[in-house]
Structures are given as structure tokens and as C-alpha cells.
């Protein structure tokens, strides 16, 4: 009896963690607009909005070059930095997506 109960609790925990985990998988893709700017589009695998989510453009050293937030369309546009960089889409702990600057094309 005890064992069955434990199993049920475990199953419930697994289901709960699995579904929240999946629902909040963050996604971010960046595109070169061909005019010296880059647009990053953020979102989640369940289709929920990323408006207001933090986005940072950082140098290799970790220095933050640009700090912004996704707009109401879950987008953020910035000027392409001259040196190497990466984009961090930060939807909270464990929910950070990094995009390498050199992988961003049209």
C-alpha cells in the first residue's frame, strides 16, 4: 500500500516536472537584416509570449554591450557589434538561450 502510494507520488512529481519543463522551453533565433542590424525573435515551445524577457549582447570577455527587453512582438533589434559577440536570451535560471554572433546570417 505504502509502496503504491509512493509510486503515485513519484509519478505525479514526474508528470508535474515534465510538463512544466516542456511548456517553458525557451527559444531564440536571430537574423541579420542585411542593413547592419540584427533582429532576435524569442519565444517558448508552447507558443507563449516572450514580451519583456531580457536579452543581452555580450562580448567574449563577458562584458555586456547591449541590454534590452523583447518588445510586444517578442522581438529585439540591435546594431551588429564590430567584434565577436553572443546573444543571451534570459528567461530566468535554467532558461537561457545563447546564440553565437558568427552563426547569425540573413
Amino acid at each position: 500500500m505504502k509502496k503504491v502510494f509512493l509510486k503515485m507520488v513519484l509519478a505525479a512529481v514526474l508528470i508535474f516536472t515534465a510538463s512544466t519543463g516542456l511548456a517553458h522551453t525557451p527559444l531564440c533565433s536571430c537574423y541579420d537584416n542585411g542593413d547592419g542590424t540584427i533582429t532576435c525573435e524569442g519565444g517558448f515551445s508552447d507558443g507563449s509570449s516572450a514580451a519583456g524577457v531580457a536579452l543581452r549582447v555580450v562580448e567574449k570577455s563577458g562584458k555586456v554591450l547591449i541590454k534590452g527587453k523583447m518588445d510586444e512582438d517578442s522581438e529585439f533589434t540591435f546594431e551588429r557589434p564590430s567584434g565577436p559577440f553572443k546573444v543571451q536570451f534570459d528567461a530566468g535560471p535554467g532558461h537561457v538561450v545563447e546564440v553565437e554572433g558568427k552563426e547569425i546570417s540573413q
Partner: protein
Amino acid sequence: MKKIAAMLLGLAVMAMSVPAFAHFQMIYTPEAAMNKGGKIPVVLVFTHPFEAGHTMDMGKPEQFFVLRSRGENAPKKRDLLNTLKPITWQSLINSGKAWATTYSARGGDHAFCVIPEPYWEGGEGHYIKQNTKVIINVGGEPGAWMAPAGLPTEIVPLSKPYDRWTGNVFQGRVLCNGKAVPGAEIEIEYLNHKPLLDKNAFAEEANATAPQDAFVLQTIFADSNGVFTFGIPKAGWWGFAALDLDPSYKYKGKKCSRDAVMWIKAVDMK
């Protein structure tokens, strides 16, 4: 002598078979679910896909557009009609006028929609007009795939059309002028010959062999809510054509079968 007899028999079989195989308006692009955005080829071909058979001449479509949606953003419509370039598509037995374009896809859902010029099917004495939709996705972030695109006749997916494993079911609802069509007849064909976009032709090699003619073109009916369900037996593109949804519809004074077509692509679980 034997050879000639076999050829005659072949011709006779082909001639008898043609009316039984369905016409399918295709909007074809190689992938339905892409990891990265970029330029993708899109072709419009009006054909008999299982057999890569008789390909009909398409006129310039009345409308060709894409609805892009991402997350909770409202879908954005982009007219693609003037990007179309005429091509000649080679089937295994003939060639037909078709259309091609390239499209730059960023993240989210892209619902390609074509409203073709009605096709005069002399053999059957009526026109055919197949409003067709294909929904692809870039990056896994869904958009408004479940929302009607607003076509006069339309299949609206109840299952995400680009996330089907082989063996899943696909469900859709058949609409005409925005209303469900109870008991709609739906024909289903498998895209059995790979479209070769560098040659504007179907590959000769077939992926599957039908043991008998009935399997070339499968038939199901929608339920009283206009909803149909199909179990997907094989990876690749599957076309669904809901037929004659508005039986009194006429074009240039003649009967016109007003159809709704949708294509989905299933992927093997590996």
C-alpha cells in the same frame, strides 16, 4: 508480340485508371519542420501525386500568400503572387505548367495558401478548384497553425500539422465559407515520388507500391462535425482533399467542384 500486348494492356490500365485517381493541388517544399530559417524553395503543381501521374496545366493562381505567425503575435499576411515564376513540371507520363518561388522563412509558423484558377476537367465535364494550404514551422516555436486562414474552402488542422510522427493520427476539420461540412468526402494520397526541384520533375523511383488500385487513393468521410481522422502509416508528405464542398457552385456557368486541400509531412521516430 507479347511485348506489344503487354504495352497495350498497360495503356488500357492507365486509361481506365486515370479518372479514379484524384487531382491534388500541391504546395511543395522539402521540409515541414526546420531547425533554422533561411531561403526555401516552394513549388505549386497540380498533379496525381501517388503515381507521379498526369500533371495538369495550372493557370496563374487567383491568390498565393503566406500567413506567418509566431507565439502569441497576430498572424501577418504577405502576398506572394507576384514572386511566382512559371515552370514546366515533368511527371512520369507528361508535363504541365506549374509555378515556383523562393521564400525567406524566419521562426514560427508559415501557412502557405493558394487559391488557384479553376481547372477545366474536360473528361469529367466540370471545373475543379482546390484551395490548398501547407503549414511549415521554423525553430519549433508554434504560431496560429490551428486558426483558419480564411480560405473559402479549407481544412483546419486539429493536430499540429508539422509535428506528426509516423503512426500518429492527423485530425482536421473541413470548412466551407467558415462553416463545418458534416460528412465531407476526403481523398488521401501519398506523395510517392520525390519532387526533384533541380529538375522540376518527379523522381522515377516510388517509395511505396499499391497492392491494388484502391490503395493509391484512400477515401474517408468527415463526421457530423466535419472532423476527420487519419492514421499516418508512412513518413513523408500526405495530401488530404475534401471534395465538392459546395455542390451548387458554378464557374463560367459550369459545375465547379470546390475542394479544400491540405498537406502534412510525417517523420519516422528514430
